[in-house]
């Protein structure tokens, strides 16, 4: 099982850790010298969901090049065991879709056939559509060793169960997608404290670089990027319990306001399951000596003309899905203990007030009334220099910045500007620093 490979990796990294040392290291390998063999690739999932069904045809590309090689001009159709033919047409290069929405039927067997422009014909084996049982998402607080950070990571582990049993289905593939929403602390400007002038070290310059595009909220979206497989074989009940779906680290969850996850369950054939299992094993190799011996993994598609290697699988599956929304306080207490919400640094009491900044330069040329503060709104895209030792370099959010012109009799110059600033880290004010701006997903419900 994949598990055996996994344990090796873990054990090895642990052993390596214990050996103190151990500067095991990874460096890049030149892949240019690898030979290239072109093969046909089929990426097709045919389901019982009422939708436009899609088949992607392509060729393999040389390793290390991010080129695409779609197969265009093919004739593609799916045939069921009653002889019905469902035609696919090329929508964009290499992507073939049904003309209308189409829904696969439970118990029917389907077969993919396609003929290339050159006239070579390929065919999959017949795959029977199995109904997928309903699923229920749950989650628990968990800690996971992270190889990326070389430490344990806290976060939420999402699971699914099949509360009504698995029915006829035994083998499953899962996908998920999630989204989290963040709401920033209001700020008027983003500014850059540029730094000390070497000749006049007491001077600091704030460049009021841009006005905050006052995003009311940001979204971060995520998608499954590995194969998640499950099976009821080897279980004493005909049902999936505690199937691991997604681990969302605190890194990902912190600062969020609301979270949603959708899990999609595909009920697949045993053959498809074995195919994916082998793919997964090779795909997750990490260079340990316990990596499986890799080789060609053949799917269910064959050339009718010769012994050519065809990659990919024509999956026929029943689909069930569930989406759930959460507010942070709906997760358990362990989660609450480590959940930061809005970063503590952004709490109003932590917002720094810097006053009595002496303004030395300003791009402002408008009128001043003595002892009457002028808001920084007037300094749009300008620069001010002030002397202070209380502001650290870097990007800060300027919540507000007021400047006052005072008269000082003792000063030979007579008039001096004094400023008062409210400063907060950008993380508090710009949700883009932790999320993609992300348009609100269509499925979002507040």
């Amino acid at each position, binding site marked *: *099982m994949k*598990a*055996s490979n*996994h*344990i*090796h990796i873990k*054990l090895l990294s*642990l*052993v390596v*850790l*214990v*050996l103190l*040392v*151990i500067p*095991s*290291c*990874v460096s*890049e*390998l*030149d*892949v240019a010298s*690898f030979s*290239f*063999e*072109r*093969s046909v*690739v089929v*990426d097709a999932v045919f389901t019982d969901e009422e939708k436009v069904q899609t088949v992607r045809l*392509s*060729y*393999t*590309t*040389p*390793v*290390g090049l*991010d080129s695409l090689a779609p197969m265009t001009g093919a004739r593609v159709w799916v045939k069921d065991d009653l002889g019905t033919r469902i035609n696919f047409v090329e929508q964009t290069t290499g992507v073939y879709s049904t003309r209308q929405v189409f829904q696969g039927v439970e118990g029917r067997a389907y077969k993919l056939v396609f003929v290339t422009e050159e006239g070579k014909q390929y065919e999959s084996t017949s795959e029977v559509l199995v109904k997928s049982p309903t699923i229920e998402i749950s989650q628990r607080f968990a*800690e*996971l*060793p992270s190889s990326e950070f070389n*430490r*344990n990571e806290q976060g939420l582990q999402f699971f699914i169960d099949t509360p009504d049993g698995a029915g006829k289905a035994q083998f499953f593939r899962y996908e998920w997608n999630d989204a989290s929403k963040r709401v920033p602390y209001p700020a008027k400007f983003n500014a850059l404290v540029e730094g000390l002038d070497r000749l006049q070290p007491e001077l600091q310059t704030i460049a009021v670089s841009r006005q905050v595009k006052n995003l009311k909220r940001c979204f971060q979206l995520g998608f499954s990027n590995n*194969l998640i497989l499950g099976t009821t074989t*080897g279980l004493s*009940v005909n*049902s999936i*319990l*505690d199937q*691991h779906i997604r681990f969302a680290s605190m890194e990902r969850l912190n600062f969020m306001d609301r979270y949603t996850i959708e899990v999609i369950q595909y009920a697949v054939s045993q053959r498809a399951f074995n195919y994916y299992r*082998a793919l997964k094993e*090779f795909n997750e*190799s990490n260079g*340990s*000596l*316990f*990596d*499986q*011996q*890799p*080789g060609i993994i053949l799917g269910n598609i064959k050339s009718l003309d010769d012994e050519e290697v065809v*990659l990919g699988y024509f999956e026929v599956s029943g689909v069930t899905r569930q989406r759930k929304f959460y507010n942070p306080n709906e997760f358990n207490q362990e989660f609450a203990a480590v959940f930061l919400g809005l970063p503590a640094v952004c709490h109003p009491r932590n917002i720094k007030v810097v006053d009595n900044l002496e303004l030395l330069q300003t791009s402002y040329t408008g009128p001043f009334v003595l002892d009457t503060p002028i808001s920084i709104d007037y300094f749009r895209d300008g620069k001010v220099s002030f002397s202070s030792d209380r502001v650290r370099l870097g990007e800060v959010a300027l919540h507000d910045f007021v400047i006052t012109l005072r008269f000082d009799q003792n000063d030979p110059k007579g008039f001096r500007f004094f400023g008062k600033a409210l400063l907060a880290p950008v993380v508090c004010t710009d949700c883009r620093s932790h999320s993609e701006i992300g348009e609100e997903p269509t499925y979002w419900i507040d």
Partner: protein
Amino acid sequence: MKNLLFVLLLCVTLSAYAQEPLKFSGNFSNQPVQEVLQKIESDLSLYFYYSPQWLDSLAFSGVFNEAPVAEVLDKVFEGTDLFYYRAQTKVYLTKGIDIIQTPEIVGDLKIDSVVVSEKQPVEVEEDTGKGLIFTREYREKAVVENDLENYVFEIGDRTAFKPGENSTIAGFIRDNETNEAIKDALIYTSTEGNSTVSTVSSADGFYSLSLPNGQNELQVQFTGKKRAKRKIVLFSDGKLDIGMDVDVIALNEVIVSAAREKSLENPIMGIEKLSIRDAKVVPVVLGERDILKVATTFAGVQTVGEGAAGFNVRGGKSDQNLFLLDGVTVYNAAHFMGFFSVFNSDALEGLEIHKSSIPTKYGGRLSSIFEVTSKKGSKEKLSGEGGISPIAARLTVEVPVVQDKASLLVSGRTTYSDWVLNSVKNVDFRENKVSFSDLILRYDHDLSGKDNLSLSGYASQDDFRLNSDTLFSFSDFAHVNTLASAKWTHVFNGSFDGSISGTYSKYGYEFESTQSPPNAFLQDFDIEEIGAKADFNYGLRDRHEFNFGVETKRYKINPGSKMPLGPESIIAPNILDEEQGRESAFYFSDQFTVSPTFSVSAGIRYSIYSALGPGSSFLYQESLPKNSDSRIGTIDYAKGDVIKTYQGAESRVSASYLLGESSSVKASYSRTRQYIHALSNTASISPTDIWRLSNEHIRPQIADQFSLGYYRDFFDGSLETSIEVYTKKLQDLQDFKTGADFLLNNTIESIALQGPGKSYGVELSIKKSGRLNGWFNYTYARTFIKLSGQTAEETINGGEFFPTNYDKPHTINLVSNYDVTKRFSVSYNLSYSTGRPVTVPVGSYVIQGLELVNYSDRNSFRIPDYVRMDLGFTLKEGHRNTKLSHAFWSFSIYNLLGRDNPFSIFFDLKDGKVKGYKLSVFGSAIPTISYNFKF
């Protein structure tokens, strides 16, 4: 001091031939001898080696006129207790020890009752009287009672003395300290005027020699022991036991000569011997002395990578080596996934690797035998040894249970890696656990002079706990070796001895997953082997040495079971049927000395294996791949039923021909059969590998090896060179389909592939002893396999021969040690090998949004070559015998150059591109310091 001189003597190439007759003139009148020697030194360019205090009170008077130097020296030392020995320009003085003038025979020459000299033994008629005079002469000397070396032993019955005939002298060679038998000690005559007759002691220390009646001088040599000398007058057949003393300081000097006991005359080829002392001079990573790691510096012994478990011997797979600890099979010889071996070097006597002509008494694996022997405890006094390294602490204690009769050896080792983990700054690893420990027990009892009983036990355990890995979590993983053996040895008479032994070995592992209560389970595997063996040695007229016996083994394998853990678990119990098998063999071999220059060792082993019930065997449609679709039936077998039997003869023949005094040629052929296979689809052996037995569908693996070698010694054996060529033909090598799943699989035949293999190679090796000692070898070796089945999934690389993943054509090893002083030595290692073959992608593609790579031909690419240098320093505290304990510090730097040696490669997606990466285990130099002591 005496020891020092002795050492020096061993170091020099002793040559009694062709010394120029140096002449000396001088006139001395009551001058200090030291000054006399200085004059001789300056006039003749001779150099004297001696301890100044010997000469303190000595003065000499005399006149020489062009006198031969020998005469001069005789005169100078006349009337003193000093002796001298001259080797070319060097003259060694000894106090109270005479030096023999016959050519030294290097300690590791293994000569079985062979007359070494080309001359036939001189008839002794005229010596009859002289022998008795000799006795009287010596009796006149003031014999110190415990000076056994000068005492003249009378052997046999004086009245039965028949001049001119031969009588047999026999006895045991023992260690004076432990009273243990010394095996392979060289006993030879050094009687002046006669040619040398020699023999080697057997496992129980027994020796016998046929010598001309009359005066004789016997010498006994053994690595690490002071040479013993006995003067005898042989009247008739009789007995003489000889005890040997430890030569403490000599340890380093003789280290390497013991490593390769490759006598020119011995027909057995391809043996590598390693004493524990050899292991001690080789720098190792993290200070754990490891006999098996040192073994990888020998020609023909390779591993797939840094810290990998398993060995590839002459192109063999890692499951084709039989690891024996005191005759018991060890199924997993690795701790920590291969970073260390399971053998604690302190408790070991040595290691012998047979890689080509495997003795007929061993079988069951194709490639090699790793015969590890534990140390016998001392029967004389309590002693011990221990050490501390960054990884583990170890302690060995030898207890005499019955004085001079019985001893117990207890040796344990344990890691403190848990402590290491806890002290690691990284908080998150604190709850993890990685540790190993092992324990060796050995009890030896001398029941009578002729019977010995030896009991031994061994246990090793590795534990891993991985903290809260919620994905596929194995919270706890442990693997355990348990071994036990009992052996009774009996000596029937001087030329016939035998032993019966019983062995037990069990290896198993289990892992637990408890993170997800509904999916919590316990999964395990174990293999149990119970064996019995009777083995006999019979020597016939000094020309034949017969070895014969029978052995049988019973295997019981639990191929895997998975059980739910906890009340919430929904895991269904899945217990695979137990597998049972019986492997028996009888064997007979004769080591026959045809003539003084030609020896043959020929033997046959006949092995019979049966897979036994209870069990069931599936029937498959012929000409279809074996899987659930082609299954047409099942045959059930009751308990004890024979499911399938395989049998066959394994011939083992080797011969050697001496081409003069210092060179020989040898040739050998051997066949081996293997009925038990480790299921592994990975490059390295792993603790979760499963052993399965041959059955109806899995055929035994068979290997035939031919080898040819030329051996030549230089400088009287202080430099040994050899070149060996071998070729192997293999049948039914075990391999597996791509992506095969071994765990809980009850139809191994559906994932197994079997095909022929071939290996060939050349091994060049040079070994040097002396102050600068060590070995160097270069190996060119290739190994291929062919997997050609009926369908695409059963065919790899188009059904053509392709290199296996341990095919490393060029390998260079250099191990060297230089003794700067008696207490300080420096060692240096160099290791080079061609990168191993790996399978690399031939294209990338996308399915369901996942970037994937496609592989094609296996092993078409090689990872970069491997180069590593190590440096080590050993500092011993004073080695005076009076001191209660001895200690030494060792400091080593592993991978001195800090070279990033790739271990493997893998592929990962980065920025939307599949990229290849190299992984190195030790990417920098690793310094280690360790402390060892002995009391």
